[in-house]
């Protein structure tokens, strides 16, 4: 009888341990995730902006690379050229006219690649204080103007990301500041891979139907 009881106890322990180890292994959400599935495309808008009130835009001739919160450098890799071209044609498709930056564009398009920016994780409502220089007011001919972003603006960390910012130059003189009225951010695996540029830019504009002349 005692022997039998011992057997029961042992089999119970074995069965219990097996069940626990088999089933407490939950289905892992990340191990079968493709790069495409890992990416998210975030767009934010200034809810007070009237997007059809702008007619012209200009786009940067190179892409800012913000690395670890340090002063951004400008770059023009093949990726950057393709990104500039993709955003340019997406803006044109929405009815905006591309002009030279000397011809007083009403909208400025800034492009930024963000690299492993672990030192710049914060949420700064209303005011953009980080990375002086890469949103270069001098580039757009507004020296001394601060950059202001709406309350939604968040900078993420420990990853590579791509940011497209649409800055209001039309009202800069009156406001004495440069307001970002639209932003798109690409996060996840493969955002710096040029094969993904068209998909990402198309998605960001597709989910922003209000962004048109």
């Amino acid at each position, binding site marked *: 009888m005692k022997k039998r009881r011992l057997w029961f106890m042992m089999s119970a322990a074995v069965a*219990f341990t097996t*069940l626990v180890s088999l*089933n407490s292994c939950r289905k892992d*959400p990340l191990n079968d995730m493709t790069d495409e599935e890992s990416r998210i495309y975030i767009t934010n808008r200034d809810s007070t902006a009237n997007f059809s009130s702008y007619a012209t835009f200009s786009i940067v001739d190179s892409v800012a690379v913000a690395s670890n919160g340090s002063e951004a450098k400008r770059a023009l890799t093949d990726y950057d050229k393709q990104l500039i071209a993709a955003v340019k044609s997406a803006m044109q498709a929405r009815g905006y006219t591309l002009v030279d930056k000397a011809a007083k564009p009403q909208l400025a398009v800034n492009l930024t690649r963000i690299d492993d920016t672990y030192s710049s994780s914060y949420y700064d409502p209303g005011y953009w204080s980080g990375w002086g220089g890469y949103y270069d007011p001098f580039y757009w001919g507004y020296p001394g103007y601060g950059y202001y972003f709406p309350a939604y603006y968040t900078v993420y960390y420990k990853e590579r990301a791509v940011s497209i910012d649409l800055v209001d130059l039309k009202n800069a003189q009156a406001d004495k500041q440069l307001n970002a009225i639209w932003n798109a951010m690409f996060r996840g695996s493969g955002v710096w891979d040029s094969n993904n540029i068209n998909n990402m830019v198309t998605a960001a504009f597709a989910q922003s139907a209000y962004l048109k002349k």
Partner: protein
Amino acid sequence: MLRLKNWILIIAGCLGMQAASAQVRPPLSFNINYSIAQPFGSVKDYSDKTSFRGWQAGLQYMISDQIGVGIKSGFQDFYERAPRAVYPTKGGDISAVQTRTLQVIPALATVQYQFTKPDAIVIPYASLGIGAANMNYEKYWGEFVDKDNSWAFMVSPELGINIPFGKASPLLFNASIEYNYASYKLAEITNFSTLQGNIGLRWHIN
């Protein structure tokens, strides 16, 4: 891991106890079951797949021929991957493939009433579990996660049958169906509600 260790300690402690009894089978029993759970309501909207990743285990002591009290725990994993879609946010939109998961670990006190005497061929029963459940909510936006881990009140009525492997056998086949309700609120989940089927074994060990 701590939870498992505690379980082993409890079981070992109970096995050490001696209970003199003239009953058909010893009063202290232990059960393990494989569980399948179907979510309802807002949990179904969040993650609508039936969960085949679950188990349940419990300890019970018969205080009379037909009434038992005990404890039970377990695990259930809900998981759904939603194809890419655009979700509105406060200031705009996010395009993402969402992977929505919820892991539930209940810790319940139970009381059970058996409708027949213990020498019956089939012993149908009803039981009620009341306690708390640990809810681990993880919603992935692409590879980025929104997560929350918290406890919620849980109540879980259960109907089932025990079929002894031979008269007075301490080993019984167990099958049951239970409804789980937890007052859990997070984001899109307004309360937790599932129907769960269990199949397994019950040993009267001491």
